[in-house]
């Protein structure tokens, strides 16, 4: 069976819900299946990418230490929504991963090219 193009889309800020963590777990699981896997951060989800997230007071695991493992799992197609970064005063330099920043029309085209969109 040919690999499918699977895009995981994150839409939530990092810690108010377990969603960000559970999305990452799903991405890591999917990385073992030899599919054409990509990851997109939309809207408030760009906050997941911030460097030096200190979660000590939350007693929760920090995404800024968890997300950098993705390239080790061969998850390298990682995208962020440029307009979401702009709206929140963020730039690529603030991010913990080397992501490709896309304009909204590019995101639309990329989504259109996928077989499966898995949103969190």
């Amino acid at each position, binding site marked *: 069976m040919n690999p*499918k193009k699977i895009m995981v889309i994150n839409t939530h800020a990092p810690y108010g819900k377990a*969603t960000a963590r*559970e999305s990452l777990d*799903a991405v890591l699981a999917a990385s073992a299946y030899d*599919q054409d896997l990509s990851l997109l951060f939309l809207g408030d989800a760009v906050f997941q990418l911030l460097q030096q997230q200190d979660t000590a007071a939350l007693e929760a695991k920090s995404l800024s230490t968890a997300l950098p493992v993705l390239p080790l799992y061969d998850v390298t197609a990682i995208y962020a929504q440029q307009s979401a970064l702009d709206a929140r005063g963020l730039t690529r330099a603030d991010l913990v991963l080397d992501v490709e920043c896309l304009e909204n029309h590019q995101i639309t085209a990329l989504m259109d090219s996928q077989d499966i969109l*898995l*949103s*969190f």
Partner: protein
Amino acid sequence: MIFSLAVYGAPYSSQASDSAYRFAAAALAGGHSIYRLFFYADGVHNATRLAAPPQDELDLPQRWRTLIQAHKIDSVVCIAAALRRGIINREEAERYERDADNLAPGFEISGLGQLVDAAVHSDRLVTFGD
């Protein structure tokens, strides 16, 4: 068409679980097939057999059980999400030395790979909840 459903919403907390149930029932009634139901995040709460909603409200966990058993639908609860939330089968209850289990018949506990497998083997994977 072959569908799989990913359900992230707990019953009664959001519309997601009810919508997923209605979609599944409609897909089957329309002659489609369901490769797998995958319950993840808060969606694992759909798999308890101990829910006791008021009698004048719909019993969503019971509806899921009935649908799953009637159509023999492969129904998987994510193990990591389930154990964190106290959804547990007898085997895991023994492993973690818990004094009870609550996974309803028709559901099985397995890993996230089953979600990916469902995506790969279905024409459409439809997500309910956020």
